[in-house]
């Protein structure tokens, strides 16, 4: 059994133990029931007794039946409870860990796959913990109980039963080993199916624009067909192992029946014990048969668990750090000290040897050609990534030493591609500060030049903006994201092309707001447009991951051909 899965049982140990205990009791009730039944039939059939004579036995039989039914109920409920508890805990852990892993991890994964692991993958553990695990124990205990009981009734048959029993698990394991790989593949096909569907659904408009959306149904068919084939393959194995099992059990029962028949003929055994053995023979095999069914479901859970633990065992990209438990100040001077960073599979470092000061109360603009590493630098500041060399210091202390959530509280970000969440405008802005009053939200929106259009929306701030802001125009969505950062009121402001989708007028408005806000704060603004960078206190020029120049607009214009090229803007040409 998988060790890591086994460890998850801990919180639900009692439930699992109880499930097994109830299963054992249930088996005892079954033995009692069958004994009474065989006794009744035998007395009437062989002893020619009438109803009145067997009345007492019939009531005992009734009692056994009722107790057994109650135990069946209890076992199911308890087993499920244990499994549900494990699942709930595990899902919460998985989500927390995904958050800890952050965007660096998720952008390398398939969202659909992650979601299917967290929802369906964990559901599949149900069978593993609730059924398979207790069944493993029961399939040992119950046959043993019946064997011990039957030895006293008729040792020949008992030995016959017990002799055939080990064949079953051995065969099952032989077939099962083979199927495990296929189950793994089937799970993979399912999570790929999810990933494919999510990506397709989210890109449906794009597909449509390219006239590919109808043709895509062929791919849907292909992906669906692959999933079906994998599933059928797995099931065929499962059914084959079921067949082997059934076959063995049937043969064994038939053997026992014929053996009993022959011995009855010879008078070696009387009817009652023979009938009892016949009744208990299926019960003897039942736990093993159930193990067969649950084993398949259990293996499905195990296959999914592989992916669950893979996520859980991925180390977070940034260390937690609690070297400085004390609060950092509300004024931040940031210093990057020969920072180097490479993406795991990048051929060249995205940043190398970058040393840059961001003094408190100043605005630094970061410019450079597309792909130069600007956003990477922003991600380092937010600690979504950790430098492979060099340090980032806040007021002289390496930020890696701080608890990461604590550090992020001090940074407000407008990402290059902001994500708006499904919900209202208000909720989206308030993400930055859940406690903010509507007035504060409105003020932030005003600063971002968003208040005007938000008021014109059908329900103002309470308008649903759809998934990823689908019901807003590009520039409107961007301003909501800016308002969010303004509301946060943090000492370090990181803005990654905050006005890329804005018209000149809105851009000016936002720029002025940033200028006002950046007083007493530390601001880093990444931009391509001259009008945004030119008023910054300092401008840093990045090229292919190297910091080439730092200076004011005028200085750079003189010194740096790269900068001159960058700002040799068409605006300039046409003047």
């Amino acid at each position, binding site marked *: 059994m998988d060790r890591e899965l086994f460890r998850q049982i801990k919180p639900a140990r009692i439930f699992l133990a109880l499930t097994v205990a109830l299963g054992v009791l249930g088996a005892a009730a079954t033995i009692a029931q069958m004994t009474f039944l065989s006794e009744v039939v035998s007395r009437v059939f062989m002893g020619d007794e009438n*109803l009145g004579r067997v009345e007492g036995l019939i009531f005992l039989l009734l009692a056994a039946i009722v107790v057994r039914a109650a135990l*069946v109920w209890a076992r*199911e409920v308890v087993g499920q409870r244990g499994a549900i508890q494990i699942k709930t805990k595990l899902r919460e852990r998985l989500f927390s860990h995904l958050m800890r892993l952050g965007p660096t991890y998720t952008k390398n994964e398939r969202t659909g796959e992650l*979601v299917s692991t967290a*929802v369906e993958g964990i559901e599949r553990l149900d069978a593993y913990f609730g059924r398979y695990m207790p069944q493993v124990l029961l399939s040992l205990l119950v046959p043993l109980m019946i064997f011990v009981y039957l030895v006293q009734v008729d040792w020949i048959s008992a030995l016959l039963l017990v002799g055939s029993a080990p064949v079953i698990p051995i065969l099952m394991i032989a077939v099962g080993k083979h199927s495990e790989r296929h189950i793994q593949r089937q799970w993979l096909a399912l999570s790929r199916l999810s990933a494919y569907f999510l990506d397709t659904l989210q890109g449906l408009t794009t597909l449509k624009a390219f006239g590919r959306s109808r043709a895509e149904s062929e791919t849907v068919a292909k992906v*669906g067909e692959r999933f079906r084939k994998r599933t*059928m393959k797995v099931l065929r194995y499962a059914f084959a192992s079921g067949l082997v099992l059934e076959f063995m059990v049937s043969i064994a029962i038939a053997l026992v029946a014929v053996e009993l028949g022959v011995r009855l003929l010879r008078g070696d055994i009387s009817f009652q014990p023979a009938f009892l053995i016949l009744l208990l023979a299926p019960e003897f095999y039942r736990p093993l048969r159930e193990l067969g069914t649950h084993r398949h479901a259990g293996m499905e859970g195990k296959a999914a668990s592989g992916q669950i633990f893979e996520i859980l065992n991925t180390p977070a990209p940034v260390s937690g750090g609690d070297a400085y438990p004390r609060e950092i100040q509300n004024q931040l001077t940031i210093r990057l000290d020969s920072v180097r960073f490479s993406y795991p599979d990048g051929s060249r470092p995205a940043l190398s040897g970058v040393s840059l000061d961001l003094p408190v109360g100043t605005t630094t603009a970061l410019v450079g050609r597309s792909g130069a590493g600007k956003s990477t630098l922003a991600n380092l500041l937010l600690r979504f990534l950790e430098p492979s060399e060099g340090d980032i210091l806040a007021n002289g202390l390496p930020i890696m030493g701080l608890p990461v959530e604590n550090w992020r509280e001090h940074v407000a970000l407008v990402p290059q591609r902001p994500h708006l969440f499904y919900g209202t405008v208000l909720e989206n802005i308030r993400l930055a500060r859940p406690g903010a009053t509507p007035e504060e939200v409105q003020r932030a929106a005003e600063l971002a030049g968003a208040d005007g259009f938000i008021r014109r929306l059908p329900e103002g701030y309470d308008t649903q903006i759809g998934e990823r802001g689908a019901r*807003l125009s590009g520039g409107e969505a961007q301003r909501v994201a800016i308002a969010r950062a303004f509301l946060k009121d943090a000492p370090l402001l990181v803005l990654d092309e905050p006005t890329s*989708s*804005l018209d000149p007028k809105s851009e000016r408005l936002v720029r002025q707001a940033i200028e006002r806000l950046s007083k007493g704060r530390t601001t880093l603004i990444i931009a391509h447009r001259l009008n945004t960078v030119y008023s910054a206190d300092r401008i840093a020029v990045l090229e292919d991951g190297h910091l080439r120049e730092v200076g004011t607009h005028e200085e750079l214009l003189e010194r740096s051909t790269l900068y001159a090229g960058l700002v040799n803007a068409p605006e300039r040409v046409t003047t």
Partner: protein
Amino acid sequence: MRVLLRLLGFLGAHPWRAALAVLLGVATVASNVGLLALSAFLIAAAALKPELAALSVPIYLVRFFGVSRGFARYAERVVSHDVTFRLLRNLRIWFYERLEPLAPSRLLEHHSGDLLDRAVEDVDELQNVYLRIFSPILVAAFTVSATFAVFWVFSPLLAFVALGFLVAAGVGVPLLVDALARRTGRQQVELRAELSAQLVDSVQGVQDLLAFGAEKERRDRISEINRKLARAQRRMALIEGLQGSLNDLLSNLAMLVLLVLAIPLVSGGEIRGVYLAFLALVILGSFEAITPLGSAFQFLGRSLSAAGRLFEIADEEPQVRDPQNPAPVPERPGLEFRRVTFSYSNSGSKALDDVSFEIKAGSRVAVVGPSGSGKSTLARLALRFWDPDGGEVLLGGRDVREYAQEDLREKIGLVAQDTHIFNGTLRRNLLLARPEATQRELERAVEAARLGGLVESLPEGLDSWVGEQGLRISGGERQRLAVARALLKNAPILLLDEPTANLDTVTEQELLGSIREMVQDRTTLLITHRLVGMEGMDEILVLDKGRIVERGTHAELLRSSGLYRQMYDTQREMLAAA
């Protein structure tokens, strides 16, 4: 019930396989009952010590059923699962084909995580209907009649009592369980969908959640759904236990009651004692066909709401439809908006208000204006993602509604403001525009979009993986990928919605150069807030709050000192100051 019938309608695709599955199901149950009951008869008969030869038929039959049970069950499972999974695959294709015409206008209300859940989990849920309801009901019906017949041979009274129990277990328990579980089942489906939706939103927005310290609040929200789901599951477990236990109880009680009734008959000599054990096991065995119904109906509510969720989407009316007899699209069409008025559903204001303009075939028109003025909406109407409320959009002199959507879009190359980059390789993303493009054409498009440098620097070139939503490449690189796609498509009409928004000025200039080259003789609509290279446009439209407020060439508009002049000055004021 209607939903159920509609689901069964999908079986029409594989009627023979479905029938075979039922037949094999019957064979399985018959073998099972036969094995158990005949074994009992065998030992009872043997106890009377007859000649061995008298037992040879029962012995033979016991062996036969012992073998046939396993094989029948195996075949039944393979066939029924095969049919079911074929159906599920068909359902997914069907769902996609119903969903596709709805995008994007009708899908805005939906979370993609929720739609994902429908396409994957809800379809999966329907296994239950096909595997556990349809065929098992028929098998159960057969078993009940057969059992009734067997008992009838011995005594009508016993037959009716057996029938009573079987009906109680086969109809009563399912109905009871369904009544108890229906709400919980629906809840489970809804909670699971909600969980998926929240997870998709959280995973894709993780950067923003973390940056704003909102991950804790989000975690709480997900825990809340998770806990609700656990509660529903615990309730379901109670029902499941009840169902299992009721079936167990009923089958044993049936056996007990029949025994009690049969004993006097045996004593009275109406039934030979040798059959007593046989009868007890016939009834126990026949319950094997009945018990699955309980669990099937326990999940019926869940399956039906899953089906309901699929039909809900599938039954939505698309906003735009293809005409009966689509007209052929001309080779080099112009584009015209004639008095177009449009507002998005459930939005108070008009996104476009009486907009008229014409782009003659091969000419270039730019649209500028404040954010939210309706620029992107123009492109969406031209592509027929929505239809206008008033007026018409004409392509090559005909209303776009007269063309088949695919033919229309074939003729249009688009760089959208928020293009989706698929989680695949660069190549796959490019080929989307033209699946049959050659390597040479791909390279040319990449070069023209100024992506050559990136492709060279990537270890696997065009086969490098761009990550979820293309997030493994930089913003400007994504933008250029979108442009490369449009260039590759090589369509006679081009709609460019801020094609250089995320680019530095050098790259922008280079890219505009490529675009200029490409648009030489194409009908072009350039949407932008960057007043750059406007001299080359044949006409510039200035849009404000959905209306065209100014129009003319660059020089004309500068002279008229209206909104365009203002925008232009704003853009340049910093330079003047510098």
